[in-house]
């Protein structure tokens, strides 16, 4: 079975056929044009080649011949990226997604940053020039050259922004890169300047026309006619060397007895050549083929099963093969002969004839095409045919069926234009129109705009229920279910857990079984909210249900997300092994998804955080660090602020455990910056809690007590499940203060810890409970209540042993060592306690005696730098005083962000600092500015 869904990896909405370099037709089926190929070769010295001529002059054929010829003769080892443009590419984002994807067919990995930017919603994108500068630099750094980018059918691009951006690329092509534009019209640029600078080669109609010799070769050799020199001269002058005209004439003559009579009639006619010839060409086909040509002319691209579906035939595959063999303007779009298109000119002719003869058929044909594309998962084309059929109901239905799964993948840039072209008040699908809008707005974070759309949806739902039409089984429940689920999501995003919970539960009673995507998604919402509220037992059950439903929905991205959230749940419940296994399943599912042509899924970034957390607990610090760094890399690539926060926090904790205090604080700073962009305050709170914890480990008790004051934390608080992390750090603070002979403080610590235990034990959060019991044991130990301390630690060890907890214990340093020895001696879990003690003994970074990170002074006593900064480093240093990010600095300096990072690293090294602020302060001290 050939693959119909020819889509590239990563980006399911990229049609691979648009990036396909049309192959040269076999020798004998083409007139070789060496003179034109030489001119194209010569053009490689400049930046741009323009192939500009009306339809039917063989522009695309020439370019494919040139490429094949250059490759075969290895005149130059040319790398070619090709984009066949269409009208929809008049969109800055879409155009560049295709161009970058084409470039990636030549240079894999180049333009990853550009693509990540392009897939973000419009308002979050960088200025297009910034993206282009990065892209140009990456191409400049790529090895294999020369590189040719072909943009075919460029005349279809009328959008000013797209044109400006392409002009920018052409004006700034790096050495070794060459752009070829082919089209029916010149691009709207100042071409005179390029001509004057001799940077542009042009091939125009006068160059592309067949010479009489080429016409002879074409008619007699390629089309197998046996014409005299005189007859060829007549045809050549009547068509003026126009290749499409000659091809149509040849098709009209093939198999005809009275060729001379045809030529006389043709040359005497004043009719537009195509009018004259198209009749001849079509008349000579069997009626069935003619009908096939007319009907399939509504398609932008053709595949046999699709043609079967819209014509009602079952032999389209052989019809297509015949048409290709007969030179009937059918162009293959892939090597497997799966997809074809008609030559644009011929397609236009067929469509105009269809419009004249069977105008009533057109909408039906588009409708059938739309259905076929929908069934084959090619939604963009399903939409485009529904729109051509003016079938608004169908368009709304298509959007509604896919809005959740697409919004879920962040494809808002695709959804929004679809919604915007639809007329308001779209018939009986109206509720779905409003629901789709509401989903998009909710996923875009525009919470305040969601409710009006939901109210509109309710109004039209009311009309539907009380209207004359009979509603399909259960439809109004499904609509109400979506409305309620969206309300639950919005409440959840606002942190209103009770409301979110109520909505999610109600939605699940309304949503029908068949809507597995919505049910799976809502069950996940329910589970997450239950977990946030601390009802872990119920959450656990909801997660298990969500796993089943999401897998049933077949929507892998949802299933991956559910599993990832479940792994978090398992971690909190102290099921380290289960959490680890679930994370592995996520990675497995996600990589299978990519292998099947899906996009790389953001939750893989989160999953590395989860794996890192478990590995850290198991004391595999090297592997934990690797996973945390991978998480940071992936999360940054997708620009997911919440995950950037979490991954940096995880990285901070590991760096601290490795004794890299400065690295930990700098990672924390990055988490803080990301948290500031978040809607929910929960992330900023998480950052400040980890910050306090790090300060505590670093012995900065003063900073932590200031934090506790700011947060208004008190031992008498009746805090809730949400604040467990913060109050755990608070309890640590109180213990630290208590260890300095403040017994009241220890008393308070125990009070907080009792409350923490109260919250954790019944909720099933063994993960939290172990940590709390450990702290309690330490506090009791500090109070001198040895027996109670030993018993409490014994409880903790009892819970911890099956899952192999390590760091929760050994991170506590010296007091834990003393306690463990006592526990071990008393015969409670002696093996486990002994193992932990052995680990503590071997780890020099532990305990209060751990050496601080030593800094080698780089500054001589007289204040001069041992190694002075280079000019470029000075430039970067000046930017460090601004608020620009590394990427923004890279944009200003027109270099890659990695280059700026290496400069910064070198600056830090030379100044002997670890942070940006320190660098600026040190530079000021040294008078470097």
């Amino acid at each position: 079975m050939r693959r119909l869904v020819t889509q590239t990896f990563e980006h399911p909405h990229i049609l691979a056929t648009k990036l396909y370099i049309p192959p040269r037709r076999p020798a004998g089926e083409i007139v070789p044009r060496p003179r034109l190929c030489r001119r194209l070769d010569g053009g490689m010295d400049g930046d741009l080649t323009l192939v500009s001529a009306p339809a039917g002059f063989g522009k695309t054929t020439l370019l494919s011949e040139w490429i094949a010829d250059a490759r075969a003769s290895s005149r130059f080892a040319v790398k070619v990226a090709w984009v066949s443009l269409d009208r929809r590419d008049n969109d800055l984002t879409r155009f560049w997604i295709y161009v970058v994807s084409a470039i990636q067919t030549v240079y894999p990995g180049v333009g990853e940053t550009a693509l990540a930017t392009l897939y973000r919603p419009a308002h979050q994108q960088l200025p297009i020039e910034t993206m282009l500068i990065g892209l140009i630099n990456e191409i400049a750094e790529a090895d294999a050259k020369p590189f040719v980018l072909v943009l075919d059918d460029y005349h279809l691009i009328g959008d000013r922004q797209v044109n400006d951006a392409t002009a920018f690329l052409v004006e700034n092509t790096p050495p070794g890169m060459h752009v070829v534009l082919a089209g029916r019209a010149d691009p709207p640029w100042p071409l005179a300047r390029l001509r004057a600078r001799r940077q542009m080669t042009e091939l125009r109609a006068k160059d592309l026309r067949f010479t009489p010799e080429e016409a002879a070769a074409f008619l007699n050799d390629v089309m197998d006619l046996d014409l005299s020199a005189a007859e060829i001269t007549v045809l050549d002058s009547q068509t003026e060397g126009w290749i499409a005209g000659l091809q149509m004439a040849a098709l009209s003559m093939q198999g005809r007895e009275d060729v001379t009579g045809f030529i006389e009639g043709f040359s005497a006619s004043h009719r537009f050549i195509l009018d004259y010839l198209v009749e001849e060409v079509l008349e000579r086909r069997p009626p069935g083929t003619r009908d096939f040509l007319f009907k399939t002319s509504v398609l932008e691209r053709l595949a046999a099963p699709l043609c079967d579906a819209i014509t009602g035939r079952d032999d389209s595959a052989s019809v297509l093969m015949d048409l290709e063999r007969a030179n009937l303007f059918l162009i293959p779009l892939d090597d497997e002969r799966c997809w074809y298109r008609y030559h644009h000119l011929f397609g236009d002719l067929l469509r105009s004839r269809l419009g004249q003869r069977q105008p009533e058929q057109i909408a039906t044909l588009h409708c059938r095409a739309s259905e076929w594309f929908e069934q084959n998962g090619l939604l963009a084309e399903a939409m485009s045919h529904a729109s051509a059929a003016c079938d608004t109901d169908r368009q709304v239905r298509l959007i509604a069926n896919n809005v959740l799964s697409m919004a879920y993948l962040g494809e808002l840039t695709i959804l929004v234009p679809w919604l915007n072209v639809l007329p308001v008040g779209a018939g009986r699908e109206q509720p779905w129109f409003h629901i789709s809008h509401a989903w998009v707005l909710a996923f875009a974070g525009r919470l305040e705009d969601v409710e009006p759309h939901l109210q509109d949806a309710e109004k039209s739902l009311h009309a539907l229920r009380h209207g004359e039409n009979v509603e399909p089984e259960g439809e109004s429940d499904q609509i109400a279910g979506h409305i309620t689920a969206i309300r639950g999501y919005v409440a959840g995003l606002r942190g209103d857990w009770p409301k979110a919970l109520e909505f999610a539960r109600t939605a699940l009673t309304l949503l029908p079984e068949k809507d597995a995507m919505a049910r799976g998604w809502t069950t996940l919402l329910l589970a997450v909210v239950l977990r946030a509220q601390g009802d872990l037992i119920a959450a656990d059950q909801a997660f298990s249900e969500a796993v089943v439903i999401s897998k049933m929905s077949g929507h892998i991205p949802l299933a991956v997300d559910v599993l990832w959230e479940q792994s978090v749940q398992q971690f909190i419940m102290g099921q380290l092994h289960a959490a680890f296994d679930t994370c592995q399943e996520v990675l497995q599912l996600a990589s299978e998804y990519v292998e099947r042509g899906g996009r790389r899924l953001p939750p893989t970034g989160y999953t590395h955080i989860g794996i890192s957390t478990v590995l850290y607990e198991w004391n595999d610090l090297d592997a934990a660090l690797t996973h945390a760094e991978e998480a940071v890399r992936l999360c940054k690539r997708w620009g997911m602020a919440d995950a950037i926060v979490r991954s940096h926090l995880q990285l901070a904790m590991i760096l601290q455990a490795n004794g890299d205090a400065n690295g930990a604080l700098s990672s924390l700073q990055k988490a803080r910056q990301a948290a500031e962009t978040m809607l929910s305050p929960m992330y900023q709170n998480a950052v400040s809690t980890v910050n306090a914890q790090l300060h505590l480990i670093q012995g900065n008790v003063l900073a932590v007590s200031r934090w506790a004051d700011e947060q208004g934390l008190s031992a008498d608080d009746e805090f809730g499940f949400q604040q467990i992390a913060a109050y755990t750090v608070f309890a640590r603070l109180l213990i630290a203060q208590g260890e300095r002979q403040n017994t009241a403080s220890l008393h308070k610590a125990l009070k907080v810890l009792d409350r923490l235990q109260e919250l954790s034990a019944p909720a099933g959060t063994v993960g939290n409970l172990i940590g709390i019991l450990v702290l309690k044991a330490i506090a009791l130990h500090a109070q001198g209540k040895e027996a109670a301390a030993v018993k409490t630690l014994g409880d903790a060890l009892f819970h911890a042993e099956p899952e192999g907890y390590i760091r929760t214990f050994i991170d506590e340093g010296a007091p834990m060592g003393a306690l463990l020895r006592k526990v071990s001696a008393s015969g409670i879990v002696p093996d486990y306690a002994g193992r932990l003690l052995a680990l503590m003994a071997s780890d020099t970074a532990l305990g209060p005696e751990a050496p601080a990170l030593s800094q080698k002074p780089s500054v001589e006593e007289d204040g001069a730098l041992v190694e002075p900064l280079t000019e470029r480093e000075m430039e970067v240093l000046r930017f460090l005083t601004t608020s620009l990010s590394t990427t923004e600095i890279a944009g200003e300096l027109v270099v890659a962000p990695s280059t700026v990072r290496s400069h910064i690293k070198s600056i830090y090294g030379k100044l002997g600092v670890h942070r940006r602020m320190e660098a600026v302060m040190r530079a000021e001290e040294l008078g470097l500015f």
Partner: protein
Amino acid sequence: MLGLKVRKTPHHLQRNASMSNSRASDEPCLYEIRVKGCLDPEWSAWFDGFTISSCSDGGSLLVGPVSDQAALHGLLAKIRDLGLTLLLVKRVQSEDSP
């Protein structure tokens, strides 16, 4: 799943209210377009209802209303896309003038 970013800049999800701000150049006009070669009158529908007549010199005359400049350019693109040679484009009159 609840980790959304703040959207600071609103983006344009709402359609623009249709605005009535037409100027003279936006008014529908009658245009005359001349191309080389005799075009079959059947093309009329393809060219948005323009009437097509043949001229004695072997060219064709297309006459019809054009709603605005964008529509005119769309029409010219269709002529280009058929590989027709364009000879003349002329605005004849404002449609509503006598």
